[in-house]
């Protein structure tokens, strides 16, 4: 049995294109894994790098904001860092992490004007998309597979050997299967060995098997497609052209059309609308009576109802109350914005059922936690943390308790 396989391998490698194609696949896969690992470790390094800077910043804020032991000042001037570490599979699919921030500072003021902030990234570099393993798998691997498989039957036919083979082979099906399995298997191996090694380096553990499984399924899909096209008994050239055209339609044309449709069907302008509305609500707070604002706020935080009433022109109680009310006033729009984004994502997943390249991308990015859902999950964690921060400061502000260095140190920390 192994002799048969070895023989088949010798025949395959004798083809001029075989070894270069496999080596190219291996090189591309290894390069993409290397690039992905480098990017992930860069992001981790940035997260490490900001910690001392953040500590220094807090120390400086403490220097002036705690001078009067006023909690309102401390809450106003202190920005708290949040971050979203790349998952152990992120190296394989960097996804949206280049365009959506993975670091964000927030303070206890209205959140809606903080949470939509962007990172300073070079848009021209982000435009073509990242060179990661998911890209190599989705776009490049099928092309190389097409090079290897397009003349599987046609080359034999063109060389006049096909009839001979039919007569001579005992187990025709097994013979072809072996031939196909060998070619696709070697390609798959070239594709997944680097990612498995990358997974070991990145500490992904068994989760890497998910990527391996998807790669196998996706390559399997293209193998079937190659076999399907070979059924039309075209020449090698026509096979190659048909397969490449199919590749073009499946990986570039249909996804681009799908994006057009989805973005037209689910418009998301609520983002801008809600920031405009939120500003009106927050700053309108200055023109309302303090009683009105505080009453509305105390409905949500009744525990501060019996604290000292506000007198005079300014009090932090009233200030933080209308900050929070500003957020609440656009809560509905914020939810609508979010559900718009989720609807776009859901439609993408639905389309993925009929578009294998999209399905591959969607699944890998979900496993790597670098998709829109991961971005929204990070925002949810920021919202929770922001609430913890507010509610940490509220007792000091509303009960008018002094706020010193000890208290400052006790502020909730971002948990990873």
């Amino acid at each position, binding site marked *: 049995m192994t002799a048969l396989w070895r023989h088949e391998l010798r025949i395959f490698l004798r083809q001029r*294109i075989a070894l270069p194609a496999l080596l190219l696949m291996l090189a591309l896969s290894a390069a993409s894994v290397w*690039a992905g690992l*480098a990017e992930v470790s860069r992001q981790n390094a940035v997260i490490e790098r*900001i910690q001392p*800077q*953040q500590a220094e*910043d807090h120390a400086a804020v403490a220097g*002036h904001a705690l001078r009067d032991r006023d909690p309102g000042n401390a809450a106003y001037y202190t*920005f708290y860092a949040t971050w979203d570490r790349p998952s152990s599979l992120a190296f394989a699919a960097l*996804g*949206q992490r280049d*365009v959506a921030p993975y670091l*964000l500072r927030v303070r206890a003021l209205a959140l809606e004007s903080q949470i939509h*902030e*962007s*990172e*300073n*990234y*070079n*848009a*021209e*570099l982000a435009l*073509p998309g*990242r*060179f990661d393993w998911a890209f190599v798998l989705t776009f*490049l691997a099928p092309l190389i597979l097409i090079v290897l498989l397009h003349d599987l039957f046609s080359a034999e036919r063109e060389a006049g050997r096909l009839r001979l083979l039919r007569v001579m082979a005992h187990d025709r099906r097994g013979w072809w299967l072996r031939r196909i399995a060998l070619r696709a298997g070697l390609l798959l191996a070239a594709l997944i060995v680097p990612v498995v090694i990358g997974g070991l380096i990145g500490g992904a553990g068994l989760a890497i098997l998910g990527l391996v499984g998807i790669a196998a399924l996706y390559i399997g899909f293209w193998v079937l497609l190659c076999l399907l096209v070979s059924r039309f008994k075209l020449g090698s*050239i*026509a096979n*190659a*052209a048909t397969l*490449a*055209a199919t590749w*073009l339609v499946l990986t*570039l*044309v249909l*996804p*681009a059309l799908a*994006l*057009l449709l*989805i973005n*037209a069907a689910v418009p*998301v302008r609520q*983002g*801008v609308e809600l*920031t*405009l509305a939120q*500003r009106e609500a927050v*700053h309108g707070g*200055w023109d309302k009576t303090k009683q009105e604002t505080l009453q509305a706020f105390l409905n949500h935080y009744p525990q501060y109802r019996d604290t000292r009433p506000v007198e*005079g*022109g300014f009090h932090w109680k009233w200030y933080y109350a209308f900050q929070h009310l500003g957020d609440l006033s656009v809560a509905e729009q914020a939810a609508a914005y979010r559900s718009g*984004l989720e609807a*776009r994502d859901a*439609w*993408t997943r639905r389309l993925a059922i009929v578009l294998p390249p*999209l399905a591959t*991308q969607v699944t890998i990015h979900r496993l790597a936690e670098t*998709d*829109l859902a991961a*971005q929204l999950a990070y925002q949810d964690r920021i919202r929770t943390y922001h609430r913890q921060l507010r509610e940490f400061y509220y007792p000091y502000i509303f009960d008018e308790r002094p706020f010193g260095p000890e208290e400052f140190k006790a502020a909730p920390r971002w948990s990873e």
Partner: protein
Amino acid sequence: MSTARLVARNEWRLMQRSRVARLALFMLLALATVATFTSIAHRNASDDLRARFQAQADQEFDGQPARHPHRMVHYGHFVFRPLPALAAFDPGVDAFTGNTIYLEGHRQNSANFGDVRQSSLLARFGQLTPAFVLQVLAPLVLVFIGFGLLAGERRSGTLRVLKAHGVTPRDLLLGKGLALAGLAGLMLLPALASLGWLVIAAEAPALPALALALGYAGYLALWVLGIVIVSAIARDPRNALVTLLGLWALTTVLVPRVAPDLALAAVATPTRLETDIAILRDLRKIGDSHNPDDPHFAAFKARTLAQYGVSRVEDLPVNYRGLLALEGEKLTSQLFDDYAKRQFEQQRRQGAIVSGFGLASPAIALRSMSMALAGTDLDGHRRFLTQAEAYRYDVVQRLNRLQAEAVTYSDDSNRNKDPEAGRRVRIDPANWSKVPDFAYQPASLAEKLRSALPGAAVLILWLLAATWLLRRAARRLGEAL
């Protein structure tokens, strides 16, 4: 020359009869048409929406009630980046950059709500625009139709027959090239029509539109030359096809993705969070306005008092708090400018590295040229950021000046204790509408052409190299026969 034309006409007739060629061309034209219409619709809808939001923001600013000027500094303003008309042809980085910034005192916010962050992963597959169709899809269709132009003749042995009829290799290559160029011309038609429409109906600038048309024509011409060359020297049609497919994948799919990665690795940029912290740190070094004994602000006070010839801030003819606000904003704004300049410089260096890869991928050269001419390159976004910051500074300083001149020092100091003073510091809202509205200045024609120049130069280089290679291919073809 007439022989070449004969060859071309004959080839045309063959192509018209070929089902594959007809189907491929039809698909491409259909896609180009869809891309043209949806891009124009999308650009118009986006631009209208932004204009409407801008009008709303302007109106809301002007309509604010009587307020303390410093309240207006914190109320701030929103600006929106208009979308140039040619963005309907090549939207460039528009989807990747936020298109609105919230402007307020002492802070510099980011541009938010870019389309890509609001889309699923699909956005990273590429957007169907006229530019994308011509940059990526059209060359591939040309490859499918043209790979066998000469390799096919060689294989079927008709090359020798042609030679016997007195067709020189030069005529043959020229003729085949002309035939394929005719197809490329057909592919350009929807783009030319859309550019023409944009110039006539949407007031797009004519010269950049013309330069775009020339640039894309040159790019497709380059592919035509490349296909003829490869087809002429390949061993057989299959080799020609595989080589051309490889070249296409390399230059339009792989290199454009690898180049940014290398640029990012070579030139690191700090994150927004770090920049924020660094600006605050620098600001503390200059002076701490919270600290009454700070040397910088003490010197500022002494200078101001001396200027007006008084000994106490209470005796100044203007509100000292307003002067302090003006000084503070000046300091922060200088730092914002410094850091922005540094960031833009880093981005330019990254951009230069990617442009260098234009020598390996004409698609990169064409893309940068195309975005520059359409006004949708990163420079356009930087221009918006710079103008927005200048506008922010202007608005804030106008309001600070109002605080200095229209609010008295004693009212300002007692506004929280004395309700009457608190009422008096809320100045006439007519002042708000005196603040000018934001008017984005797009790049001038000269600036657009200048930033399109590097890409254009690389393309011309490619064309020259291809012409030279074509001559060599013709010679080789002649020798082989």
